[in-house]
């Protein structure tokens, strides 16, 4: 079974999806929950059996299909962690879909199909297979937004589509060229292939067009707030939790190892866009009246920390970015669940319609506070570890980037605490909000596991770093040929006694 565990993990939700289409609503919920739980169990087996420090690619399987197109799967530690994130969030999403009443079977089928495709993205080792999974993975999302979304769902999914279209066309063309040049569709081989530097730049830009949209980076982020606002709760969770991670995964799997020189060449483009994103989207988050929009904008700011870390070209930056991705997947997912909990009760995302929820919903207030703090990056939660490593990584390249990206630490606290204050603190000014009941057992079951993992990742991130360590070290070695020089320009220290008479001059310069 272990030889084909990845195929099995793809198959289980796919089968579940097929069954869901033909059964009634209640049965569909059960089937979906069972399928996602089985996949979660398989995920645990996968993690358990993954040999830390073992071969770089594990659980590989390969079957020639036709015309050079092959079914090739396999994972490294990075993919493993993202798969774990996906299978962990899926059962929670199914639980969070209790308020969906319309076309439940199709809804569950869409989610299960998406799970298959997500795992497919992270485990594909064939370039075309990856492309199919990567692009097709968005189709269920369009459906989820377009059918089960809010009032403006058509506009939102249209925007989503338009942005992604441009990127995916360019990426496909780049892939065709690459296969032509390197003569293989095998991703591990391509990761070690040295493309000509000039060609790298064009290829890098083509991939960037796709990944920057998925990430999303400023200024191609405007689809995200609309998509989140219109998506049903579980859709938002998967969108923020896993789909946004595909952009980061793309950078770490394709752009960086395949085009190291081009990555170094364009690093400043990435830094510039990321710095703008941190400041601009954080400030925008500050003035939002819609909870989901606020969290969506905060996602853009957090993803900017991921991109600066990835392009820091060092171990701390890369590991930090991975942890930010995992952490953000959990935390923003949980925050969208928190919004969903009260949306289900009052059917509004307007922040001002709530207030004083700490009084009637103390359990909710506690968990919401925890996730708020994790989003703010409080040490002891997962948010801190990633943010800290990422910024420590980028500091070695440029103190300016670290400083500007670091302002997100201040602004993040401002907009998240301002949100929390308006929702949970203050008087209960709205009678209907004051009458809302605290978390049900189902809702606790959704949020408590995420809370536990957020703390686990914050206190002992070694569990999550260990599987990725070797892969990141390999990537770091691969990148070393193009590594930029830091801007610190540290000069050697002089023994204090000898330097004594020079010190006034030194300090004069310091002012």
């Amino acid at each position, binding site marked *: 079974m272990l030889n084909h565990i990845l195929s099995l993990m793809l198959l289980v939700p796919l089968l579940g999806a097929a069954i869901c289409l033909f059964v009634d609503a209640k049965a569909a919920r059960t089937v979906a929950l069972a399928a996602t739980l089985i996949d979660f169990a398989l995920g645990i087996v996968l993690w358990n059996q993954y040999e830390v420090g073992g071969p770089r690619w594990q659980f590989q399987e390969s079957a020639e299909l036709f*015309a050079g*197109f092959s079914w090739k799967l396999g994972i490294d530690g990075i993919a493993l962690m993202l798969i774990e994130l996906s299978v962990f969030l899926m059962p929670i999403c199914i639980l969070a879909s209790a308020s969906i009443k319309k076309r439940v079977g199709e809804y569950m089928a869409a989610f299960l199909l998406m799970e298959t495709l997500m795992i497919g993205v992270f485990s594909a080792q064939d370039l075309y297979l990856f*492309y199919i999974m990567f692009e097709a993975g968005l189709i269920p999302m*369009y*459906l989820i937004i377009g059918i089960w979304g809010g009032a403006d769902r*058509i506009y939102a999914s*249209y*925007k989503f*589509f338009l*942005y992604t*279209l441009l990127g*995916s*066309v360019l990426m*496909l063309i780049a892939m*065709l060229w690459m*296969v032509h040049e390197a003569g293989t*569709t095998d991703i591990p081989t391509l990761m070690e292939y040295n493309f000509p530097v000039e060609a790298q730049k064009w290829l890098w830009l083509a991939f960037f067009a796709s990944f920057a949209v998925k990430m999303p980076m400023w*200024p191609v982020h*405007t689809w995200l*707030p609309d998509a989140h606002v219109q998506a049903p709760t579980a859709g938002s969770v998967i969108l923020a939790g896993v789909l946004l991670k595909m952009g980061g995964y793309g950078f770490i799997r394709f752009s960086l190892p395949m085009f190291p020189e081009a990555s170094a060449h364009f690093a400043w483009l990435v830094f510039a866009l990321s710095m703008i994103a941190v400041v601009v989207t954080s*400030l925008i988050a*500050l*003035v939002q009246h819609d909870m989901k929009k606020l969290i969506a904008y905060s996602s853009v700011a957090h993803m900017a920390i991921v991109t600066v870390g990835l392009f820091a070209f060092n*171990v701390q930056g890369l590991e930090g970015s991975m942890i930010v991705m995992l952490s953000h997947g959990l935390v923003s997912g949980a925050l969208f669940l928190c919004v969903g909990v009260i949306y289900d009760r009052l059917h509004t995302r307007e922040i001002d319609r709530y207030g*004083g929820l*700490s009084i009637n919903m103390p359990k909710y207030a506690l968990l919401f506070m925890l996730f708020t703090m994790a989003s703010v990056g*409080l*040490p*002891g939660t997962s948010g801190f*570890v990633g943010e*800290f490593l990422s910024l*420590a990584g980028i500091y070695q390249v440029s*103190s300016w980037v670290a400083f500007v990206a*670091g302002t997100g*630490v*201040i602004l993040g*606290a*401002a907009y998240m*605490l*301002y949100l929390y*204050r308006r929702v949970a*603190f*203050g008087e209960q000014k709205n009678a209907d909000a004051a009458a809302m009941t605290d978390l049900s057992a189902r809702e606790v079951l959704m949020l408590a596991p995420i809370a536990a993992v957020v703390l686990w990742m914050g*206190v002992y991130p*070694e569990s999550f*770093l260990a599987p990725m*360590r070797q892969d990141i070290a390999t990537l770091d070695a691969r990148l070393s040929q193009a590594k930029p020089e830091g*801007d*610190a320009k540290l000069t050697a*220290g*002089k*023994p*204090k006694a000898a*330097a004594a008479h*020079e010190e006034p001059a*030194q*300090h004069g*310069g*310091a*002012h």
Partner: protein
Amino acid sequence: MDPILLIVFLPLLAAAIAGLGNRALGNVPAKAVTTLALFAACALSWPIFISFVSGHAEPHVVQVLHWVRSGSLSFDWALRVDTMTAVMLVVVTTVSALVHLYSWGYMDEDPDQPRFFAYLSLFTFAMLMLVTADNLVQMFFGWEGVGLASYLLIGFWFRKPSASAAAIKAFVVNRVGDLGFMLGIFGTYLVFNTVSIPEILVRAPSMAGSTIHFLGMQWDTMTILCVLLFIGAMGKSAQLGLHTWLPDAMEGPTPVSALIHAATMVTAGVFMVCRLSPMFAVSETAMNVVTYVGAATLFFAATIGTTQWDIKRVIAYSTCSQLGYMFVAAGVGAPGAAMFHLFTHAFFKALLFLGAGSVIHAMHHEQDMRYYGGLARKIPLTYAAMMAGTLAITGLGIVDVFGFAGFYSKDSILEAAYASASDSGRFGFWMGITAALLTSFYSWRLIFLTFHGKPRWAQSEHVQHAVHDAHGHGHDDHGHGHAHHDDGTAGYHPHESPLPMLIPLVVLSLGAVFAGWVFSHSFISEGGGEFWKGSIAFSEELIHHMHAVPTWVKWAPFGVMALGLFTAWYAYIRNPRLPAAFVEQFGVVHQFVFNKWYFDELYNFLFVRPAFWLGDKFWKWGDIGLIDRFGPNGAAWVVAQGSRAAKVVQSGYLYSYALVMLLGLTAAISWVMVH
């Protein structure tokens, strides 16, 4: 098991039990479990401290768990026990245990007691993690943890808009400092390739005279690292510029003000600078920055303290000012004196706050001193405790005989500032002397307004509510109404606080009276090096210079203390019309000082409003007006114009997408087949 593990983790465990148990657990069990945990931690801490005082203990580190391993950047959860830690352990656990006990009385009528006690214990845990940190990142963990607890406790009465606003302000202003702290940690890691505090301290001297680029400018390496870290300290310790959150933090319940915003958390910045004092000592510029900022703060805060009417705000500005003294000491190279003042200040300032809490409790939550007066006879024990605290903070004492706590610690700071013989030290000294005069004035002003003179609370709304409630509930068995009370009491008779509140007052009074006398030898004598065991940059030489200062320097603090006392007596007892006349004469100056030098208004104008304005414009002009208009909406418009079939675009996008993908794939596969 090493006792330090129990000291640190018992409060965490208690916080979890009380917090998660919350209403299910009930008030008394939640309160009992947290209070017992703290008394246990306190009982375990004192022997550690005593063993360091007697010189029998050796510094050691207890490893707990790996935290992060990332390339060469690695740090663990570990508990460091050395002299610095031992001092902080007794300060934190003692004040915290007493505050827990005090809160049994003070918070007795609050509906949310388990939550309150859980926060208090959580705070204590975070503070203990901070003081036992062996690396900068764990220190940052504690740093942020106490920030969280502070945020939760300032906003404890979250129904009050002012409380939740103050909570956010405290967190966000602190985050400004934290950015400096984080950048300082990154820089330290870049330079030393480690974040372990002992390793950094050993290697810091070798970096003297080296340079580094930060934000495009060339700096002396140790200067920029220390200044960045110090920015963090300025935030947490409410130094000038980043102080605005501290007065607002008084929105929290008074026991919180005593524990967090007086005795422990706000001293974290001082602790950090002292802990890293061998590092700061390498950069003269950084030391000067610390001294100047401290000196400016101690003066600035003291001026505001003289004008405030809210009893807690007076003490809050006093705290801000006293923290400035500690930074002056650290800046002139006397971290021993800084730590000693931190130690004594913890006792007398906690005492003053808890005393103020007792007054507020007696006065039915009235905090305006204009509505106090003549309370000495009503609440004599509180009066005695506040007297002890005031004598300690103003530093009454006779050289070489006996003095209250502040006498030893504050005077040693002033002597060190004078003895350091640097420009910054001189500045610190003169500012310190001036502020000592102001300190004496505002402290005695507080005592006279509160406890002396005639009762003035008839006009107080809080007291009127209390009287009215009592009457409304049918307790009007005295048979007389308001009109009969022309003695200013309106029939309201303040009563002394219950025992759980009085015991902490008594214990802390003992500290305020004797802590200086008992421990000055260990902390700041020539033999101090034995006591500190290298945990701070202790300079025997400076101690010698301190002892050799001119006699007038030794007596100057006493002189200004007496002058302040006399002025306060003259203005508030002898000639009570004088302050009003003064205010009329110097209206502009008074307005400026009374309004806290307009810092809040300035920051509002410079940062808060522009942030919201920019956010709005970035959103409406940038995202909607520019990106969406010319991006997706523009594309839709073009397509619609071209095909004249907007509906196809809007409803058929899914199919066109699938089509594009399919076409692409077909192309790809045929390409591969052809080759």
